């Protein structure tokens, strides 16, 4: 490889750095600037900026030739007139969201059942059989295959299909240019809540991942409004929670409608309602924060609506599969495997006549029932602090253990095979009602952020105080909301 023969002014040609000025010189420069500032007057800056804008306009004008006649029909503007209109903006937004969820719910059913069949019905007994064949001690095969393997397989079966459908659809919307229109529609509401309009963008980022949403708040200039956006980002349902919402909605809400196609639509509608409730809570909490501890002016900004661009379908499919689906799935698996091991141990270490898991569940049960949930769900949320993705598998496993549904699993700590019907049987056996399902959906929306998000909040704010607020405020609200719903529900339904 020949090197260029000319002396290069680039990095490799740089001599050791001579430009460290003595402090005296720096003081002199600053003092001079201070003194001169009075001489040049206030308006010089405006004049310079003006000169620059004039120059830019002149150059642009010289270089650009526009078509003589205005185009008769501007597609972008026509689309914008509809999707950002007062009347149609919100309905279209809600319909698009509902459509995405409906496609996800309807499309994920079959592959989910296939994966469950393959990984749980077929592979799991085969692995157990193999272990028995080579004489592996039963505690080891239990730990490995009933704990680690089953938790991991469960996460894949539950999460992979919905993610593989949801992410590409969402990315297509993003690529098309729809997200800034969402921000445009929501801007007024955020302003009225005392928050920054750009928070609408960080909110939509949070629908993918709250940690990413928190990082995205860097686009907000004012520290006050940025803090509001960080604290409330958790009310954007993230991809660790969408599958929980979708599963519980299709198990408990869908069956309320008779026919099967209507069930899918009702389930999708339920998920949209929960997501919109999150948006509402985001407004409410932003409003309260900006009227109390984070008081201040609302800053204005200009939001550029980019042109609509035809999404590149294949590339979107590829990047959303590789970058989002697989990365999120990998994260879930990384957390699910040790969690599975931990749960298996908790279920198999007995102290005073009951397993550790049993003690924990019994301890939390009275409080859980007060909230219209149960001890199993609260215990699962403890296990799932690192990753919300594993809530449902943990719930199922703990339910089997504590409700004595031994027929379903094989011994303590076994996660059983389960298609949707099987899951419903288990949960009903664990004493679940419609209320439990509804409150789980609510609690899944309103609880502490996952540990990754908490860490990100701390990194972005560098404040223990605000990290604590952002972590504990939602979980306290979650307790409050589920408690009220449970009490009212029992009063009305008598259950």
């Amino acid at each position: 490889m020949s090197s260029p023969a000319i002396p290069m002014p680039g990095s490799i040609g740089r001599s050791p750095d001579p430009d460290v000025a003595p402090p005296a010189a720096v003081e002199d420069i600053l003092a001079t600037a201070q003194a001169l500032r009075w001489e040049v007057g206030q308006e010089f800056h405006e004049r310079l900026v003006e000169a620059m804008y004039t120059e830019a306009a002149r150059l642009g004008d010289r270089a650009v030739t526009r078509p003589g006649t205005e185009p008769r029909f501007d597609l972008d503007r026509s689309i914008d007139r509809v999707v950002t209109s007062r009347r149609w903006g919100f309905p279209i937004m809600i319909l698009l969201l509902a459509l995405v969820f409906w496609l996800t719910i309807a499309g994920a059913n079959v592959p989910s059942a296939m994966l469950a069949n393959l990984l749980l019905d077929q592979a799991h007994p085969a692995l157990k059989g193999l272990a028995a064949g080579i004489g592996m001690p039963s505690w080891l095969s239990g730990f490995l295959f009933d704990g680690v393997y089953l938790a991991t397989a469960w996460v894949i079966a539950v999460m992979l299909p919905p993610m593989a459908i949801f992410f590409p659809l969402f990315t297509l919307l993003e690529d098309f240019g729809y997200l800034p229109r969402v921000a445009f529609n929501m801007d007024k509401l955020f302003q009225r809540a005392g928050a920054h309009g750009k928070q609408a963008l960080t909110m939509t980022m949070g629908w993918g991942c709250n940690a990413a949403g928190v990082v995205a708040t860097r686009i907000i200039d004012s520290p006050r409004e940025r803090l509001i956006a960080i604290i409330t980002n958790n009310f954007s349902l993230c991809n660790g929670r969408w599958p929980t919402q979708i599963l519980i909605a299709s198990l408990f809400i869908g069956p309320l409608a008779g026919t099967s196609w209507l069930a899918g639509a009702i389930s999708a509608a339920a998920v949209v309602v929960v997501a919109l409730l999150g948006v509402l809570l985001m407004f409410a909490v932003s409003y309260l924060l900006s009227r109390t501890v984070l008081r201040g002016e609302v800053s204005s900004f200009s939001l550029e609506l980019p042109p609509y661009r035809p999404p590149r379908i294949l590339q979107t499919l590829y990047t959303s599969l590789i970058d989002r689906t697989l990365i999120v799935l990998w994260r879930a698996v990384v957390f699910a495997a040790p969690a599975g091991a931990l749960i298996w141990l908790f279920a198999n270490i007995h102290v005073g006549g009951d397993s550790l898991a049993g003690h924990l569940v019994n301890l939390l049960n009275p409080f859980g029932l007060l909230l219209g949930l149960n001890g199993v769900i609260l215990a699962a949320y403890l296990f799932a602090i690192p990753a919300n993705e594993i809530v449902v598998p943990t719930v199922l496993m703990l339910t089997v253990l504590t409700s004595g549904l031994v027929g379903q699993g094989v011994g303590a700590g076994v996660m059983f095979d389960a298609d949707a019907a099987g899951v419903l049987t288990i949960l009903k056996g664990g004493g679940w009602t419609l209320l439990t399902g509804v409150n789980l959906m609510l609690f899944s929306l309103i609880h502490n952020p996952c540990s990754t998000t908490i860490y990100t909040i701390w990194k972005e704010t560098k404040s223990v105080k605000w990290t604590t607020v952002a972590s504990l405020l939602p979980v306290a609200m979650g307790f409050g909301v589920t408690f009220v719903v449970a009490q009212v529900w029992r009063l009305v339904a008598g259950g």
Partner: protein
Amino acid sequence: MPAQNPITLDPQTVQGNGNGSTDAPALGPACAACPAHHAANLKRLGVDMADWDYVVALAGNPNTGKSTVFNALTGLRQHTGNWPGKTVARAEGGYEYGGARYKLVDLPGTYSLLSTSLDEEVARDFLLFGRPDVTVVVVDATRLERNLNLVLQVLEITDRVVVCLNLMDEARRHGIVVDDRRLARDLGVLVVPTAARQREGLPELLQAMQEVATGQVHLRPNRVHGEPPALKQALQQLVTRLEAAYPQLPNARWVALRLLDGDERIIQALKQGELGSLTRQAVLA
């Protein structure tokens, strides 16, 4: 559309530049200087940037396609999105072209360099203190006038600029014709029309970046002057002092302007010695 180079090319430096390919030694100078030849030799290095010869910054208004250009050159798949503010931190990647290794830094989009928000500050700090060998300003051909404000501001900081006139496909669709040669003459820097999503114009862009990085072109950027006499004098005083204290500072006039304006960030940078060696290390690290 190969960009006709409007800037005087020094024939000696063109010949002196090796083509960087060991398995094709028989190429004449004309071949070595041809964009098509190098484009075939573009090696996307992804995040593998053990050492590099040149640092290239990608700046521009939000949503002009900086990340798309970045991905096309580095082979990385930095997520791109059709909304302003997608990139909030800087992303880095590398490529090898014409025998030299380039480190490419994708900066957050910014409308100006007089910024207040964190993402805009990331961009400004890098341009100012990172001292990239080449700054590629990606501009939206359909919104040229507004985008040129940033180009003019960047030209205040550094001469070593390539203007990437992106989204030419959209400009064509809207019937807008941009005279890139006239623009290049007016600005005094290289202007390359591209449509990065379709990979149109990227070979020419690479070539232009190489020419600026290796100093093959003499750039005479157009700068906005015409300040009132009092300001001119004040600037002169400050520039003299700054140049005495920092002999290598390439943008003393801009720093002087910011000091007159009372820009806290720049005052801090002076006090903490960032204008000197400190940031250099931070950037290289």
